């Protein structure tokens, strides 16, 4: 184990290696924040995906050493760091709020963690310049955080985290407070900012962010880990309805259905049973991702009236009622859909997911199996 200049051991130096969480739990005043978390974090990007209160922040705080777990252990390469104090860890943490040191200039903000590490003056200057260039805040080095825009403030927070070159980088929804355009841009840049040995844990509520960041996706819900795997694989093969709902924006359409005599009945709709439906299917739940409903003709016809249309960034969420069921379609581009106007959406049976009554996946969409 390495030691810093005061002789304290520093973990995570060089690379975080494999961090293993075993049966990790945390409860505060009887309220369960995390429960039974078994997880292996490897170097690379790990995305914690879940809604608010899913336990993402709690997990990050435990990893950072800000909170102690009330059950279970955290080990790194076999070494127990469950109770290791904050000062002996080498981590970087970026909050969703823009957290900087208001009294320091941008330059001093980035340099602060390096000075604490006791690096030489010219080494600090070199690193600050390098990180500022990568985070694109070079022209702002002499300003105060309050003189920066929101996006720039978060870039600064990210720059300060990067400057430490910590093997474990924790991000708690860093882009959530930025506007849509800024978010898109910064998200793409973020991926390129890490190096190979680093273990990045990135919490987000947005499925798209998980897909864009790539790496391993860890789907969390109510303090538990529901599913872990490569982003696209989890996306295509959600283990349960809950995962499918979390990993879809807007949430996946899930409709109770019955299969009988080679036909599938969804409410008032009846269609031929798709080929990929599991054998011996009776009562089940059928899922259809909102972006798989389009307005160009397809085999399944969902005809009804618009309940509500909302524009989100560059797409439109159309809520409509068809066959006695509410549906959500995600249409590319901005569409004008007055409330009550007729709406016809089309879908492909190959895009249907089949879940058992209890929510576990029976068969993913056929498209998902291939590509």
């Amino acid at each position: 184990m390495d030691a810093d200049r005061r002789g304290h051991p520093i973990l995570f130096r060089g690379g975080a290696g494999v961090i293993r969480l075993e049966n990790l739990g945390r409860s505060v005043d009887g309220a369960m924040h995390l429960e039974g978390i078994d997880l292996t974090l490897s170097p690379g990007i790990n995305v914690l995906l879940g809604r608010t209160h899913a336990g993402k922040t709690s997990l990050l705080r435990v990893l950072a050493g800000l909170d102690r777990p009330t059950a279970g252990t955290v080990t790194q390469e076999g070494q127990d760091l469950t109770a290791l104090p904050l000062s002996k860890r080498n981590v970087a943490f970026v909050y969703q709020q823009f957290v900087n040191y208001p009294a320091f200039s941008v330059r001093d903000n980035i340099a602060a963690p390096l000075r604490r590490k006791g690096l030489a003056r010219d080494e600090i200057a070199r690193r600050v310049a390098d990180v500022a260039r990568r985070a694109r805040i070079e022209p702002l080095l002499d300003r105060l955080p309050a003189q920066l825009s929101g996006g720039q403030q978060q870039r600064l927070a990210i720059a300060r985290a990067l400057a430490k070159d910590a093997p474990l980088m924790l991000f708690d929804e860093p882009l959530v407070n930025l506007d849509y355009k800024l978010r898109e841009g910064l998200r793409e840049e973020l991926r390129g900012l890490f190096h190979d040995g680093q273990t990045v844990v990135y919490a987000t509520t947005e499925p798209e962010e998980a897909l864009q960041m790539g790496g391993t996706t860890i789907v969390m819900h109510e303090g538990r880990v529901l599913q872990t795997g490569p982003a696209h694989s989890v996306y295509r093969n959600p283990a349960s309805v809950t995962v499918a709902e979390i990993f879809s924006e807007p949430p996946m359409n899930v409709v109770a259905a019955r299969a009988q005599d080679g036909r599938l009945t969804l409410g008032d709709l009846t269609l031929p049973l798709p080929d990929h439906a599991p054998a011996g299917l009776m009562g089940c739940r059928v899922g259809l991702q909102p972006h798989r409903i389009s307005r160009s003709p397809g085999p399944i016809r969902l005809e009804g009236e618009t309940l509500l249309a909302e524009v989100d960034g560059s797409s439109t969420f159309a809520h409509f009622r068809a066959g006695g069921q509410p549906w959500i379609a995600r249409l590319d581009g901005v569409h004008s859909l007055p409330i009550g106007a007729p709406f016809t959406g089309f879908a492909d049976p190959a895009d249907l997911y089949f879940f058992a009554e209890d929510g576990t996946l029976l068969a993913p969409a056929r498209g998902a199996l291939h590509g």
Partner: protein
Amino acid sequence: MTVIETRLATDTPARAAFPARRLACACVLGAYLIFQALPVYWIVRMSLMTPGNVMGRSDFLPVEPTFDNYRTIFTDPTWYMSFLNQLAYVCLNTAISLAVALPAAYAFSRYRFLGDKHVFFWLFTNRMAPPAVFLLPFFQLYSAVGLFDTPWAVALAHTLFVVPLAVWILEGFMSGIPREIDETALIDGYSLPRFFVTIFMPLIASGIGVTAFFCFMFSWIELLLARTLTSVDARPLVATMTRTASSSGMDWGLLAAAGVLTILPGVAVIWFVRNYIAKGFALGRV
């Protein structure tokens, strides 16, 4: 005032159509200002006159103005030493109170500990009793430990009343600073003391300014404890002022000059922290 008037005149023609209303406003404010400033002016006026004239004349402007009273104060050691004594214990009190209240307020603002709410409340119970209640114990105690008649006696006695207020004000300011800044600093390798001094204190500078102001002013104008806990060596100005009666009667001019000098440090403190106070009243818990 002028800014407001210009804006009223140019931006809102509807308002400008009612000069009578503006006039009324100006009159009320003016009357209030005079009401407030007159006693201050009167004491300045008295301080520039001889005792005979103070009692005999009631002209608005000083009669036969002279700086003799001030000269007496600045040359007579009883007077100027008592001025310095008072300044000494006031500054001591402010420094001690801040040094104690800053960590205490941080603890109340950031940590949850057994009985934190009760202790926070209990701090205030000290303020529920008038200072006179504590006179006897202080007098006895300080006499016993040899602190009687030193600036420390008064400074320490005053902290009893000032620290709760200081903790309360500072806690309000500190709770307005997101905890994430503390955590980020700890993650970045700051020790708690270093974080507190280099990062945290600049953030609550307004709060510290406001608190210092309250500490200073309480101590500066407090008479009872200051007078009782001192006799000769550490006698403060306020006490000396109450002892100006002599065989020739009260020296009103001298008393007025001492009064003016008592006002000055307060004015200076307010001048220095005026921006902080404005901010402090707006943001914090004052």
